[in-house]
């Protein structure tokens, strides 16, 4: 299995170039959905609104509740249907700290809120932190029994180590400390880089600080959180912490994992080969056709669930379904019009002998991930300039020639084409086939195409790219 551990905490543009062409690559499938934290402002229960989180069926939400008190506190989940992770943790000292953790797997209609206990008393600070993830195993969401800390004599709650048994876990840590005062919340160390949430509140005589963050662990084993900073170091302070390992879905196919990861972003998965995306002869997506039939294709469904279907309303411009999408090299094209806010990635399976072609581009703007021309010494073959890989071989923008790209792709056999990072922020979607202004067409087949909205995917971008590479390899192996 490919080692992807180096991606943790790495800026996206730096990390992606390090990926091998991942045939059977690591299935780091759990996707981050949302995080949230807030303080209880009174003894009234706290209701957290999740309606804008984009939750889907089988997403998991994990909630941590903490309170500082001169004794034990009630940190209960009020909403029904939640499972407590272990039991309440009690850091018994002059300034006690009590924490509890809960999880719930969303049903067909995901919850729009949850409610937890507010402060026990008006001067006893309380905080809630929540995370939502996608692609977690719904049968055994916790890979191993969570490890916990409940201690006195200091309020810096570095969470304990945990030893996982499944590759691709997400490690989620929460720590909370109490004190007579609190200037800096407990803050996760360097190996917990993602979506850090912290809350701190000093109510005069009692103070609370809580923090949480997560990391990916590509290969099962022991994960030891780096030392946290912040909190109250007084020996009168109590502290508590959780380390939880979320197990990736063990039953999902690569396509299902990628679909789960890309849901809710402007990413798309089009696979016109038989057995994947639904194809239609009309752009209204009402008349199904059979892949491999040779019928004109007016629509290719987007398997991501994001609704970014490839469409063509003019029959003369429609490719046929002979071999994936088979484009005529004259005028065929299909469009999916949408916007992204930053970098994108293209991964495609193509088969062609075209000597002068641009198979992919934006719809009506000037971007394209690559084209080629037989015999051309030009080193400008993408816009904006960006590197591509063909069957894993790197072609460097500004160095490799358009002729070299042609020689690699236009062999008449299925080739995997990847542009792993291209600035797509000013483009208007994806066109397959003839470019909008008549400059360059494409004669050949497109068997599969994945477009990744890297900016929208955020912390899930590297995992999505890895899964898309695996998916392409799996499909190619069947052709």
């Amino acid at each position, binding site marked *: 299995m490919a080692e992807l551990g180096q991606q943790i905490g790495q800026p996206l543009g730096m990390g992606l170039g390090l990926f091998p062409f991942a045939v059977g690559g690591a299935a780091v499938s759990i996707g981050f959905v949302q995080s949230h934290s807030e303080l209880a402002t009174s003894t009234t229960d706290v209701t957290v609104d999740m309606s804008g989180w984009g939750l889907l069926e089988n997403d998991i939400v994990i909630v941590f509740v903490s309170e500082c008190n001169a004794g034990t506190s009630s940190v209960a989940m009020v909403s029904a249907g939640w499972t407590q992770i272990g039991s309440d943790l009690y850091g018994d000292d002059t300034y006690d700290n009590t924490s509890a953790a809960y999880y719930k797997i969303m049903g067909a209609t995901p919850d729009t809120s949850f409610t937890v206990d507010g402060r026990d008393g008006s001067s006893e600070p309380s905080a809630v932190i929540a995370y939502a993830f996608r692609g977690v195993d719904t049968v055994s969401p916790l890979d191993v029994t969570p490890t916990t800390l409940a201690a006195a004599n200091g309020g810096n709650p570095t969470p304990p180590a945990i030893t996982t048994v499944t590759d691709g876990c997400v490690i989620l840590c929460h720590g909370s400390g109490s004190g007579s005062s609190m200037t800096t919340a407990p803050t996760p160390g360097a190996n917990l880089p993602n979506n850090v949430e912290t809350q701190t509140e000093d109510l005069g005589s009692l103070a609370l600080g809580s923090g949480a963050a997560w990391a990916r662990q590509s290969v099962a084993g022991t994960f030891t959180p780096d030392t946290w900073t912040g909190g109250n170091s007084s020996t009168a302070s109590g502290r508590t912490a959780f380390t939880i390992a979320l197990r990736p879905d063990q039953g999902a196919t690569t396509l299902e994992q990628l679909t789960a990861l890309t849901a809710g972003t402007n990413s798309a998965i089009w696979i016109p080969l038989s057995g994947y995306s639904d194809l239609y*002869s*009309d*752009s*209204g997506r009402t*008349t199904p*056709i059979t892949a491999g039939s040779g*019928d*004109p294709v*007016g629509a290719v469904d987007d398997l991501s669930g994001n609704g970014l279907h490839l469409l*063509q*309303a*003019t*029959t*003369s*411009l*429609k490719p*046929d379904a002979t071999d994936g999408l088979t484009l*005529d*090299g*004259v*005028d065929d094209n299909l469009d999916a019009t949408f916007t992204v806010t930053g970098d994108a990635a293209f991964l495609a399976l193509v088969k062609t002998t075209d000597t002068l072609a641009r198979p992919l581009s934006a719809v009506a703007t000037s971007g394209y991930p690559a084209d080629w021309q037989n015999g051309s010494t030009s080193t400008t073959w993408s816009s904006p300039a960006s590197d591509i890989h063909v069957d894993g071989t790197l072609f460097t923008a500004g160095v490799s020639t358009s002729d070299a790209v042609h020689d690699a792709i236009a062999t008449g056999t299925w080739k995997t084409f990847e542009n792993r990072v291209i600035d797509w922020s000013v483009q208007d979607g994806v066109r397959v086939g*003839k470019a909008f*202004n*008549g*400059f*360059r067409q494409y004669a050949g087949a497109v068997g599969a195409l994945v477009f990744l909205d890297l900016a929208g995917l955020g912390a899930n971008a590297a995992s999505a790219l890895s899964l898309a590479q695996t998916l392409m390899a799996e499909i190619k192996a069947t052709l």
Partner: protein
Amino acid sequence: MADYTNRIAIIIPANVKPDTDAIFSILDPDVGGANSFTVPLSSDGGNSITHWAAYTRMIQNSYTALTTFSNNDFKNYVDDLKPDNSVPLGTIQSFKQRVLLGAEGQDFWEFVAAQGLVPYEPEM
């Protein structure tokens, strides 16, 4: 499920394009038929466009009507496809008298070259 022909190269003079667009907006079973002809052609590849071309499959019945029917019968066929939008006979005549049709499955670029035409591609 409609029965389609193989691809057919179709070339029309530029001054007939509005008539052709009107007819293909009806012949096309999808909604974008008015945009069927997108390949600009000229005698030398320059931007003085003299003709427009398409490389398209057609509904088999439409192809038969186009290639075998009289002007009046073809008009009736087109009008029956979209009864609320009668196409003037003059439009039908203008199109049918000037349209150049390749054979089913004939290579598009060979057919274009055989007419002494060259595709215009803008510089970029």
